[in-house]
Every structure is written in structure tokens, then in C-alpha cells.
């Protein structure tokens, strides 16, 4: 017994030492660049002129590497679909849910009632201001979904409409792809943001289609997370 434990401890310590060594070699070989590399220099120089976005990170995510973002959204969609498929098998009978819930407490209920509108507003703000300030559709969508989760925590018996969430999710996904195709038809390529006028640099309605795309991404991500949480809530493993 004792020797087995010491062998296990030795193995764990050995693994930790190996990990530490790997990270140490990473750190030891690191020298900060004195100047931006070619790609970064291109982005730093041309982003404002080409896309009209104040936040270079957003311009790269939505425009220059827009196809990758579409891929990420697709991965998230697949995850949500698989979660719904797996958890949907063990769905509770209708009317059976809502009974046997522990009351969630005065503090949580009142706090949620106060905070929920602010959280939702902040999520929308983060998603819509992605081209001006740090943040964007993914972060805004996650904030929206955490607001939804807070609502579920405060009132476990509450249900929000499956169909509404599914519709929001699919319509925003379709619109995202449609904007991308419009970019091919009207501007320089797939997901080119110059299908709309670039507008005044730094204004809320500027940077072409970026605010529109990020609003759609925010809705889509928020709906996907919410549908995952909802199918988690509706499962009963009895």
C-alpha cells in the first residue's frame, strides 16, 4: 500500500517535472521581437484604411480571417446540436418538471431581477461595439448566455421557448453566410465588410458590415449557449 502510493507520487512528480521542463524551454528560448513582423505590420498599417475598424483585432477576426470565424461558429453550432441530441434522449415528461425544485432564495431572486437587464444590455453593448472597443460577438454572446443562466438559477422552473431560440440561431447563421456571399458579389471577396459604406472612423455605425456581422454572431453564440443550458436543465436522469 505504502510503496504503491510512493510510486504513484513519484510518477506524478516526474510528469510535473517534465511539464515544467517543457514550459521552461519555451520560456528560455523566448526573446521579444524588436519590431512587428510583416503580417502584423501590414495589419497595423492598413486596417484602419481598408476596413474602417478602430479595433484591429476585430478587423482581423471578422474581415481578414472571417472564414475562420465562420468555422468557429460552425463548430459551436455542432456542439450545441450534439448536446441537444444526446441530452434530448432523456427528456423529462411534460408537467413532471417544475415539481421538487428547491426555492432559490430571496437574495438570488432579487439580485437577478435587478442585474439581468444590465447584464443583457452589457452583452448587447459588447457585441455591437466590437469594432470600436475590445470585445465582440463571441464575448457579447457569452455574456448574454450567462444572463440567461442566471435567470435559470434564480427560477429553475422557468422555461423559455425552444422554437424562439432555434429560430434566432438559424436565422442569424443564415444571415451571416448571406452577408459573406454578398461580399463576393458586391465587394472584394467572401465576408468582405465593404458591402456597406465604411462611414466615419470611430463612429458606432462604421466599418461597413462589421457591426452587423458581430450582432449576428452575438445572437448566434448567445442562442447556442442558451440552448445548451436549456437542454441541460430539461434533462432528468431518473
Amino acid at each position, binding site marked *: 500500500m505504502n510503496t504503491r502510493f510512493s510510486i504513484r507520487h513519484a510518477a506524478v512528480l516526474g510528469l510535473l517535472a517534465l511539464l515544467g521542463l517543457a514550459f521552461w524551454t519555451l520560456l528560455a528560448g523566448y526573446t521579444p521581437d524588436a519590431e512587428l513582423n510583416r503580417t502584423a505590420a501590414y495589419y497595423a498599417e492598413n486596417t484602419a484604411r481598408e476596413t474602417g475598424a478602430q479595433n484591429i483585432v476585430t478587423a482581423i477576426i471578422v474581415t481578414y480571417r472571417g472564414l475562420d470565424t465562420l468555422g468557429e461558429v460552425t463548430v459551436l453550432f455542432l456542439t450545441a446540436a450534439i448536446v441537444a441530441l444526446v441530452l434530448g434522449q432523456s427528456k423529462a415528461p411534460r408537467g413532471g418538471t417544475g415539481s421538487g*425544485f428547491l426555492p432559490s432564495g430571496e437574495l438570488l431572486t432579487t439580485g437577478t431581477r435587478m442585474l439581468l437587464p444590465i447584464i443583457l444590455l452589457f452583452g448587447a453593448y459588447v457585441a455591437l461595439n466590437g469594432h470600436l472597443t475590445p470585445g465582440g460577438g463571441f*464575448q457579447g454572446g*457569452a455574456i448574454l448566455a450567462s444572463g440567461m*443562466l442566471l435567470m*435559470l438559477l434564480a427560477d429553475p422552473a422557468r422555461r423559455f421557448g425552444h422554437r424562439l431560440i432555434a429560430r434566432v440561431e438559424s436565422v442569424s447563421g443564415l444571415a451571416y453566410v448571406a452577408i459573406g456571399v454578398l461580399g463576393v458579389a458586391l465587394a472584394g471577396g467572401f465576408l468582405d465588410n465593404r458591402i456597406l459604406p465604411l462611414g466615419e472612423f470611430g463612429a458606432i455605425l462604421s466599418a461597413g458590415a462589421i457591426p452587423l456581422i458581430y450582432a449576428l454572431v452575438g445572437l448566434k453564440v448567445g442562442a447556442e449557449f442558451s440552448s445548451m*443550458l436549456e437542454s441541460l*436543465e430539461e434533462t432528468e436522469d431518473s
Partner: protein
Amino acid sequence: MTLALLATSGFAAAMLIAALVAVVTRNTAVAVLSAGLVSLFASVLFLFLAAPDVAMTEAAIGSGLTTFLFFFVLGRIRREGSDEH
């Protein structure tokens, strides 16, 4: 420069301590909270490294959504545990 270094190492140390607490503690709620704290400190570190976008994602998903989700599941486990007897 030294102040930034000091703050960075302070937050890194706090992150490690929170991670240790999350692993060692027997109280599940404390463990969930300190796991959320790890993400919060990580997002502050990202902010120091001039990556506000990454910091925002880390704060929203790591310390917001995940912590809520853990508490949500904890509540469900308690509910179903109390159903059985």
C-alpha cells in the same frame, strides 16, 4: 517597469494560490469559486499583456459562464439527492 513586473508576479502568485485552493479544499462551493478566481486573475494578466480582447473572453467564459454553470449543476445534484429520500 518594475511596478508592472511586481503586479504581474503578484497576480500570477494569486492565480497559483487560487488554483491550489480549488484542488485542495473539501468544500465544493469554495472550489468552484476559486476556479472562477483563477480565470479572473488570468484575465487581469491578459490585460497586463495588452490583450484586452482575450481578457474579455476569459472573464466572460472562464469566470462568468463556467462558474454559473458549476453552481447550476451543483444545485441540480442537491435537488435530485434530496428527492431520493
